[in-house]
C-alpha cells in the first residue's frame, strides 16, 4: 500500500460513522496490505510497521470515540472524569501485526464517587472491547483487557496496584509490571497516563532489586537456535519444519530490549525506539546497535510473514513460519540474527553477573 493510500484510509477511518463502516475499512486495509513478501530491506519493514500501526491506532482511537457516543446515546452520559485508554503488548509497542489480539487497560481520574465512576468505565470499556471484536481484533486469552476490573482503575488505584506489585515482586507481579512497561496511551487524556508512567519509573528507582527479579521472566523464552547453530524446528504436528517466530525469535528480543531499556531509564515503548535510546545512552556500542536493529527488524518481518487467517470474524495470527518459505539469504540471515538474539539475552544476564 502506498503512503497516499495509508493517509486516505486514515481519513476515512476518522470520519466513519459507525462500526460497520469501520469493519469495512479494516477488511479493505487487511486485503491491501497482505503482501509482506514483497517488502525488502530494513527501511521497507520499518516503514511498513509504522504505517500499519498508525492505521491500527486510528481504528482503535475511532472505536473509543464511537463507544463514547454510544454511551451518550444509551443514556449513560459522557465520561464522568478524564480517562486514558491504554494499549499494552504489541499495541503498546507499536508492533501490531495484521492479526494482533486486544491487550488494553484504562486509567480514569480519581473521583469521590469512585464505585459509580468505575461502573461507568467498566461498562464503557466493555463496549470498546466488543466493538474491537466486531472489527476483528480477537479478545485477549489472558484477560488483559480494559473491561476487566484488574485493568480498569482510578489513578490512585493504579498507583497502589503498582506499589503492591513492586513490593510483592512475585512471579505474577513481575509479569504484570512487565506488561505495564509497554503501556501507551492511544486515546483520552495523555497526562493522566504520563503521571502513572512517572510513578512506574519512580517504582523502579525505589525498589532497587526489582530489575534483577525481572531477569528470570525476561529470558524465559529461548532463541530457537541450537548449540551447533542449527534451527530448533517443530518436529511434530501441523507445523513440522517450522519455527515459532513469535516465541522463539521475536519475543525473546523484545523482552531483553525492554529489560535493558527499563534498567537504563528509557521511556519509549517501541523496541526500535528503545534500541535507539540505548545507543544514545551508550549502553550498546555502534556495532551492537546495528546488529540489534537488524535482528529485530528481521524478526518483525518474519512475524508478519507468518501470516494470519480469518476465524469467526477475527483476524487470528500464526506464530509459526515454515522455513521452506524463506530464501537461502533469509535463512542465513535468520540463523545469524537468532544468534544475535542470544547475545542480547546474554547482555541482560551480564548486567547482574549471571
Amino acid at each position: 500500500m502506498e503512503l497516499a493510500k495509508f493517509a486516505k484510509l486514515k481519513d476515512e477511518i476518522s470520519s466513519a460513522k459507525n462500526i460497520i463502516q469501520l469493519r469495512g475499512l479494516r477488511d479493505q486495509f487487511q486485503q491491501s496490505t497482505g503482501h509482506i513478501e514483497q517488502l525488502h530491506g530494513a527501511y521497507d519493514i520499518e516503514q511498513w510497521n509504522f504505517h500499519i500501526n498508525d492505521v491500527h491506532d486510528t481504528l482503535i482511537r475511532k472505536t473509543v470515540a464511537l463507544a463514547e457516543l454510544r454511551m451518550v446515546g444509551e443514556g449513560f452520559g459522557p465520561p464522568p472524569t478524564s480517562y486514558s485508554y491504554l494499549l499494552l503488548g504489541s499495541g503498546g509497542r507499536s508492533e501490531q501485526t495484521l492479526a494482533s489480539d486486544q491487550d488494553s487497560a484504562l486509567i480514569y481520574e480519581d473521583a469521590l464517587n469512585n464505585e459509580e465512576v468505575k461502573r461507568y468505565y467498566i461498562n464503557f470499556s466493555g463496549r470498546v472491547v466488543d466493538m474491537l471484536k466486531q472489527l476483528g481484533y480477537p479478545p485477549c486469552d489472558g484477560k488483559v483487557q480494559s473491561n476487566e476490573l484488574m485493568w480498569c482503575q482510578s489513578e490512585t488505584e493504579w498507583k497502589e496496584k503498582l506499589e503492591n506489585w513492586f513490593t510483592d515482586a512475585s512471579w505474577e507481579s513481575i509479569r504484570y509490571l512487565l506488561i505495564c512497561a509497554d503501556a501507551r496511551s492511544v486515546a483520552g487524556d495523555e497526562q493522566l497516563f504520563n503521571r502513572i508512567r512517572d510513578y512506574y519509573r519512580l517504582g523502579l528507582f525505589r525498589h532497587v532489586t526489582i530489575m534483577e527479579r525481572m531477569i528470570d521472566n525476561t529470558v524465559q523464552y529461548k532463541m530457537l537456535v541450537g548449540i551447533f547453530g542449527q534451527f530448533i524446528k517443530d518436529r511434530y504436528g501441523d507445523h513440522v519444519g517450522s519455527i515459532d517466530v513469535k516465541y522463539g525469535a521475536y519475543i525473546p528480543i523484545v523482552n531483553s530490549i525492554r529489560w535493558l531499556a527499563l534498567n537504563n531509564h528509557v521511556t519509549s515503548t517501541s523496541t526500535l525506539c528503545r534500541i535507539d535510546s540505548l545507543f544514545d545512552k551508550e549502553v550498546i556500542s555502534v556495532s551492537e546497535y546495528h546488529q540489534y536493529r537488524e535482528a529485530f527488524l528481521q524478526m518483525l518481518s518474519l512475524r508478519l510473514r507468518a501470516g494470519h487467517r480469518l476465524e469467526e470474524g477475527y483476524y487470528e495470527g500464526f506464530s509459526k513460519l515454515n522455513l521452506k518459505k524463506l530464501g537461502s539469504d533469509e535463512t542465513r540471515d535468520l540463523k545469524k540474527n537468532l544468534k544475535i538474539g542470544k547475545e542480547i539475552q546474554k547482555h541482560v544476564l551480564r548486567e547482574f553477573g549471571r
Partner: protein
Amino acid sequence: MIKKTLLALGLISMVFPLAAYASEADIANLTIGLDSLWIMLAFILVLLMQGGFILLEAGSTRMKNAGHVAGKTIFTVGLAAIVYWAVGYGVAFGSSGISGFMGWGEFFFSPATEVLEGESYPASVFFLFQLAFAAISLSIAWGGFAERAKLGSYVIFTLFYVSFIYPIVAHWIWGGGWLSEHGAQDFAGSTVVHLSGAVAALVATILLKPRIGKFNKDGSPNEILGHNQVFTALSVLLLWVGWFGFNAGSTVAIGDGFFAYVGFTTMIAAGAGGVSALLISWAVSGKADITSMLNGVLGGLVAITASCAFVDPWAAAVIGLIAGVLVFYSVKMFEKLKIDDPIYALSVHGMAGIWGTIANGIFATQALAEKVGVGQGGLLDTGSFKQLWVQIESVVFAGVFVAVSSFIVLGIMKKVMGFRVTEEQEIVGLDLSEHGAYGYPEQLTKSEKA
C-alpha cells in the same frame, strides 16, 4: 597357649568343615552348584525383564491399549515357553546339526533331573536361560506390532518366531553354527536377541503401516505421546537391572569372577548411553528429552551386550556414548522414512544392536577374545580387519535372514487372516476390542473412545 591354639583350630574346623575336610569331588559339586545357582539367578533376572517390557510398551503407548499390552506380554512369554520347549531349543542347540544352518534333536526337551557326567551345570537351567533370551527377543519384536495388531497375529507369530526364526540365528552364533565357526563374537546377544527382534519389528511395522494419526496426509509426523513416562522410566530401571542377568549371566560360570567384569562394562556403557543421548537431545532440540535419555540407556545396554566380555572399560564407555547418539538420530531417521516405531524398538534394539556387534570388530582385545575363546581381537588392538569383517557378516546375514523369514510369515498372515485390527477397533483401543475391558476402566468409558 597350646591349649588355646588347639581350641581355636577345632572351632575353625567346625565353622569351615569343607575347607578342612573337603574332597576334590565335593569342591567340584560345589562349583557346579554355584554355577547352576548363578545361571538360575540370571534366568530369573532376564525373565523379570519382561516386567520392564510391559512397563516400557504400556508407558510408551496410549491408555486405551495398556491392559492389552501387559496381558499379551505375559501370555506370549508362556506360549514361547511351550514352543521353545517343543521345537525352538532343538533348532538352536539340537545335537544333530544340519550343516551349521540349524540344530536338530532334543525336541520336546526332556532334561536329566541332575547334572550329568562332564557337564558344568544341569541342562535344565541352560534351557531356562536360553528360553528367557528367546522370550526377550520376541518381546522386542512386539514393538513393531504395538497398538494395531490383532491378538491372533501375536499367537501365530510366536509359533514361527520361537520355533524357527530366532533359534536358527541363535544356532548360527551360539549353537555351533556357521557364524560361530567364523569366530562371530556376540557375547550375550546384540545380534541374536536384539537385532533379530528389531528386524522382526521392522517388518511388522512396515506391513502393518503406521498407527492412525501418526502421519498427516502431507507425510508430516504427529507425536503420539505415551500415557505414562514414569512407567517408561521404571521399565528402563527394571531392564537395566535385568541386564546383569543377561550379560553377566552369559558367563554361565562364577569361575574366576569374570562375570563381575562383564557386569562392570555393562554398567559403564549404559550410563554413557544415557548421558550422550540426553546431551545430544538437548543440543539438537533445545530441550533435554527424557524419552531420548531413556532410549540412550537402553541403546548403551544393547550395544555393550555383544562386547561386554571382549572390551576394555574405556571402550565400553565409547560404545555406550556412540550408542546414545546413534539411537537419538535413528529415531529421527525412522520418522523421516515414515516408519511408525511406537516403542523405538528399531532404534534401541536394531541400530544399537548393529553398532554393538560391529563395535566388537573394532574394540575387542586379543587378550579378552582369548579368555572368552571366541574370535580374535578387533581392529584397534590387532590392526586386523578380520574380526570386523566377521561381525559385519553376522549383522548382514542374521538381519537378512530374520527380515526375509519374518516377511514370509507375516505376509502370509496378513493375506490369510489379516494382521491389523479394523479402524474402529484401533480407535476404540485394543483393551476393549480384543479383550472386552479397559486396563484403566475408571479413566475410560466406551463412549469416550479415547
